[in-house]
Each structure stands twice: as C-alpha cells, then as structure tokens.
C-alpha cells in the first residue's frame, strides 16, 4: 500500500472499453506531474489496457490490485 495521498479517483466501474482508459486520460490531464490517480474498473481487459496506457503515455503504474472483481490501479502522472 502506498501511503501517499491520491489526488483524484476515477470510478470506471461498470464501464466498457474504451471508457475506463478515456476517463483516465481525461482525469490525468488535470493533474500536476507526480500526483497520484486512482482508477477503479470492473472491465477484465483493463489489466492489460492500463499497463499499455502507462507504457504509451509515460505515466507510471505504481500499484495494481484486484479485489472482489474490482480492479484498482494507482498511476503517477508523468
């Protein structure tokens, strides 16, 4: 568990592709470099998608957990 404060939470639970990624990108835009963004999703494809998104955009995937069918990603804005 990271102890740092999450700056914003994106609740993408129940949403299908491409909305979890789209909402994340929109939220990341408003963050300052170094701030943390937490994303909650239920789309099983999001595990691979968020890894790919982080790689492509240079934002860091700090943490990734799954609990009760909810995928949780913590990303650090580049």
């Amino acid at each position: 568990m990271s102890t740092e404060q999450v700056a914003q939470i994106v609740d993408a639970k129940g949403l299908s592709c491409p909305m979890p990624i789209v909402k994340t990108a929109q939220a990341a835009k408003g963050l300052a470099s170094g701030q943390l963004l937490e994303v909650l999703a239920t789309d099983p494809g999001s595990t691979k998608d968020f890894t790919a998104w982080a790689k492509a955009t240079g934002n860091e995937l700090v943490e990734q957990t799954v609990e009760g069918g909810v995928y949780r990603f913590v990303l650090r804005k580049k």
Partner: protein
Amino acid sequence: MTAVAETPVPAVEPAPAPAPDAGAKPRDILIICYSGELEKTWATMILATTGAAMGAKVRVFLTFWGLQTFVKDQKRITGEGMMQKMMSFMQRPGISHRKLSKMNFLGMGPWMMGKLAKQYNVASPKELLEIAQSMGVEFMPCQMTMDMFGLKKEDMIDGLGEPVGAATVIALLQGGDAPLFI
C-alpha cells in the same frame, strides 16, 4: 529461420526488440473512415478516442459512406439534384441512423445492439464522437464526397475541419502516420 544465404554470413546477434520509448511522442494516427455501417462507425470512434487517450494525435478522414455519418442527425434529405436527394433518402445520414452490415432486419439489429450496449455500459458512437471531439481528434471531410453528395457545410455536424482531398491523406501517410482504413 528459413532465409537462404548464398555466401556464408557471419552470425549476427539478434537485435533486441525495439523497446517502446516510454513517454516518447507516439506516431500520429490517421483513420480513413470510409464505411457508414453502425459497427464500423463504432470501431472508428472507439479507436479514435483510445488513440487520443494514449496521447497520440488522431485525425479521421471522412469519405464516401463514412462522411454520411457526420451529417447532422436531424437532417433527413441532403443534396441539390434529384439523384443526390434520393441517395440521402435511401440511406438516412447521421450518426444515430447507422445500419448494420449484417442482421440489420429493418432496424431490429441496430435497435438490439443499442439495447445491449446500454445493458453493458458501452458508450454509443454518438457519445464517443463527442468525447473524441473534446479530446482534440480532428475530423477532415473529403471535399470530393461533399461535392458528389451535394453536402454543404451547414448539413454537417459542428466542429469538423476544412474539407480536404486525397493528397492531404497521402501526405500524412508519407509523413509516417499509422493508417487505419475502416
């Protein structure tokens, strides 16, 4: 490897797979939106929004049936002459009036697709179009198609770019844009 060399070649260390340079400027994406069917419109919109979300500059060239999708939903008949009017009558333009290429069944198919999309929280092509525009995806109408179908600027949805021709498309491809023909 099945490559045959006539003269022995010195063993070469296999080059490592090009590591994607994290955070480097990604290739621009050019979607050539040619088809007007519901499922292809959907694919165009999903890829355009995702491309923008991945940090790429996305342009969508709207041509032939693909351009009909970007006529205002409330427009029923477009064009000047009888033939142009008949064309729009036979295939209703607008993003909310797309038909499926298969299983259309007089609109039953698209209606069922819409129901399923709602049930599974899949954003509609129209919603995705609005998101794409808000994320800076550039839509470029094809001038030739505009002329051929008698479409005027006021027939089209807001926020489209200036009409362009095939040379603009080719120049973007030559410049290295990743192409998608849908």
